[in-house]
């Protein structure tokens, strides 16, 4: 049976076709014409607030039609090029970040049934999402310091477009991206055809090449919950992060344009995005975390301490399963060739252990989801700690595998007892499917081959396979 939204879309499509046949635009508003609106997407902010965004080359923001009403979108970030700031690269390998498109936005009512900009329909959140697509670490690495210049046009080497197409075909209700969208930091050397003419730096062109173009099917398929990775800290792609993805208000202080503001702009107060009436995702910004444990007097310790307390408040919501989501694994592993795997991020652990001694997470956190390590991990603990997923195999170079069999008595953090771990290092993504009162987590290869299925029960998961999974 055709649902009402599909019927509305069909009617609109017929009307659009008729208008085109008549040689007319579908809208009299020049700003709303499709040729100006280059990309349109929806991110979910605090409380699940849907925010429609567009990138447009027109001076005025377009109108957005929501159900029966039309309003003009608000300018979020005007096109422009901020003065060169310090970056993670040498000054000779940096340039000012140019954003020639305006970013416009409109907060949508949670009850919205249909939203459209020009002829482009926007994906809207469902009251009870059934399927969430999870991915992370998706860009194409061009980094001079690493001498790493990936062949971005080679789908075998950088499969984000394939992943996005495969995942979009699974018709997710939401997409959860756990950080590291942007990797094209430095210019492709003239002698390398594989990345020839790729944009570089931190401007719009790199964001388009690394995310908006290859992930277009997924951006059209569902609203996104966006989590910030270390590649989006202020000295890297932070400027684009705030213009395009961050769900808070845009301001000079929160733009990463001026390094003087990095001390605050590299942090975001955690917020919750509901997944229906019984589950919520708590988004935590760890973009700037380091690798070493933090002294309690360190400003970063203090910032994360405050954030973990906010997480506790959010996770205290009654009758709600809370999924903690940040980029850097906390109770996960990082493979180390020729040695035992490293545990979770030491800086975050040092704060988590102080705020929630021995538990690391506050009560109410059922599961944790991360990226950063370029593999898939599904970890269950026999101690009372939230099961953990890592889904960082979305396109950048893969890491080494975790050992198989996994070493006994190797906790990701003191006081944690590993029960079982399932892991893989092939390109792919994860899907969360609602299953009764909980969720089922499925790991897929880039081509859509199911590798493992894990079912959730409170803060535990049970996977149908254990140990290393070949791709």
């Amino acid at each position, binding site marked *: 049976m055709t649902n009402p939204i599909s019927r509305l879309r069909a009617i609109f499509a017929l009307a659009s076709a008729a208008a085109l046949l008549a040689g007319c635009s579908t809208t009299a508003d020049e700003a709303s014409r499709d040729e100006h609106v280059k990309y349109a997407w929806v991110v979910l902010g605090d409380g699940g607030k849907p925010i429609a965004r567009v990138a447009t080359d027109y001076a005025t923001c377009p109108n957005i039609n929501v159900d029966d009403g039309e309003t003009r979108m608000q300018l979020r970030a005007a096109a422009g090029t901020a003065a060169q700031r310090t970056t993670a690269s040498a000054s000779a390998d940096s340039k000012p970040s140019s954003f020639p498109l305006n970013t416009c936005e409109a907060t949508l009512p949670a009850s919205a049934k249909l939203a459209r900009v020009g002829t482009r329909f926007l994906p809207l959140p469902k009251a009870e999402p059934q399927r969430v697509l999870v991915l992370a670490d998706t860009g194409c690495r061009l980094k001079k310091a690493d001498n790493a210049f990936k062949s971005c046009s080679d789908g075998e080497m950088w499969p984000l477009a394939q992943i996005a197409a495969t995942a979009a075909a699974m018709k997710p209700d939401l997409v959860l991206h756990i950080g590291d969208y942007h990797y094209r930091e430095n210019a492709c050397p003239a002698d390398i055809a*594989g990345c020839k003419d790729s944009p570089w730096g931190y401007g719009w062109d790199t964001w388009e090449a690394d995310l908006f173009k290859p992930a277009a099917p997924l951006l059209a398929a569902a609203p996104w919950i966006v989590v910030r990775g270390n590649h989006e800290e202020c000295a890297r792609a932070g400027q684009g992060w705030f213009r395009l993805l961050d769900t808070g208000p845009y301001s000079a202080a929160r733009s990463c344009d001026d390094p003087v503001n990095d001390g605050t702009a590299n942090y975001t107060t955690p917020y919750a995005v509901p997944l229906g009436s019984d589950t919520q995702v708590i988004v935590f910004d760890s973009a700037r975390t380091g690798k070493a444990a933090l002294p309690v007097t360190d400003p970063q310790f203090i910032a994360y301490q405050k954030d973990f307390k906010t997480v506790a408040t959010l996770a205290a919501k009654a009758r709600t399963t809370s999924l903690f989501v940040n980029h850097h694994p906390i109770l996960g592993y990082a493979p180390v*060739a020729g040695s035992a795997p490293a545990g979770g991020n030491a800086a975050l652990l040092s704060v988590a252990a102080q705020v929630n001694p021995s538990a690391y997470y506050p009560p109410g956190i059922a599961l944790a989801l991360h990226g950063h390590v370029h593999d898939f991990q599904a970890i269950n603990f026999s101690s009372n700690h939230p099961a953990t997923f890592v889904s960082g195999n979305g396109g950048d170079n893969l890491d080494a595998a975790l050992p198989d069999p996994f070493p006994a008595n190797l906790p990701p953090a003191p006081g944690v007892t590993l029960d079982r771990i399932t892991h893989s290092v092939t390109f792919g993504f994860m899907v969360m499917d609602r299953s009764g009162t909980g969720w089922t987590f499925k790991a897929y290869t880039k081509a859509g081959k199911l590798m493992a299925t894990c079912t959730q029960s409170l803060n535990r998961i049970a996977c149908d396979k254990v140990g290393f999974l070949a*791709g």
Partner: protein
Amino acid sequence: MPVKLLMAGVALLLAVSASASDVVARIGITAQRAAMPDVAGPFNPAASRAALGRQAFFDARLSEPAGTSCASCHDPGRAFSGNHGSRLGVPLGSRPDRAGVRNTPSALYAAYIPPLFFYQDDDAPAPTPFGGLFADGRADDLPGLLRHPLLDPNEMHNRSLDAVAAKLRSAAYAEGLKREFGPKTLDTTIDAIAALGKVMESFLQSREMAPFSSRYDAWVQGKAALNAQELRGLKLFKNPDKGNCASCHKFNETSSNPARSMFTDYGFDAIGVPRNRAIPSTRNAKYFDTGLCATASANKWPDSGQWCGYFRTPSLRNVAVRERWMHNGVFTTLRDAVAFYATRSIEPERWYRKGELFDDLPRRYRGNVNTATLPYNRRKGMQPALSDAEIDAIVAFLRTLTDTPWAGPR
């Protein structure tokens, strides 16, 4: 690249000014660099110096007793690798009853090897070492390298550098050295050895020693074709789910600069090759060549033992021409070398005596062996990442890396 933690190493990191150079810290006495070095070359050595270096390279008077030159082991007939007539997997020395302990690496492309350094990508948990001459990275330059084979009793067996300098003074190319470096250049040992190092460096930088003339190079330039099996092998070599060879043996087939296709990242890895019991030294059951950890100790790296078993990833250019494979020369065919990666832990009985994994390392260091990187992360009972046909394809691709002078039927 293999990633290795520097246990307890933080205290020894001595920060230095990043503005003065790209050195951001020191681990022991080894520099940690802010960036990987740019691609080396092309070199343009003075022809006169390269010619002198070539003469020295082939000078059989430089051993004790005379008769063994650099070229005796770095055999021009085998792409400057070889084992001086030995069938042990390691070369014979200037005294025929003595043999070395490592397979002779090719001297081709040696000029492209950077000095030893550490680098840490921001996503990596710890800095890792790269570069340095020899499989254990212990020398940073040619003058530093030369003393080892010249003085090693198992190699050229000179009593001292003074003895080598004396031979240089009476060499056919002595006048040439004086012309290049001054009439007194051979007067002192230190100057004479330095001059030898410089001309040898020029020779290694010469086109003869870095020809980039393989079918692979021609294919990259659009001047030759690879057949279907070779192309399949290339894909398998790159595929992170299959050979994953390119994770260490880096190359870029889209680059017109052949130096981006050195088929190594100059990093170190512990792959746990089987013990070569033909090497005379191994008659002593307690003898082990533990590779990088000796360099780590000499360079005052913290916990040097964690690097035992690590050897620098060699270039695969001309790999098909080698007489033996792996640092200890344990394999007699290239196919075995490739198959080893795919089945090391799945079929240990095939590779190790009594199936005892990593038997060329002391037990206490066997945990250093990389069991994480594909394809050698598999355990017994699992399917190997590569089938026999896929191994054959990778071998076929590797044969395309042979430079023209050695590309004929063998």
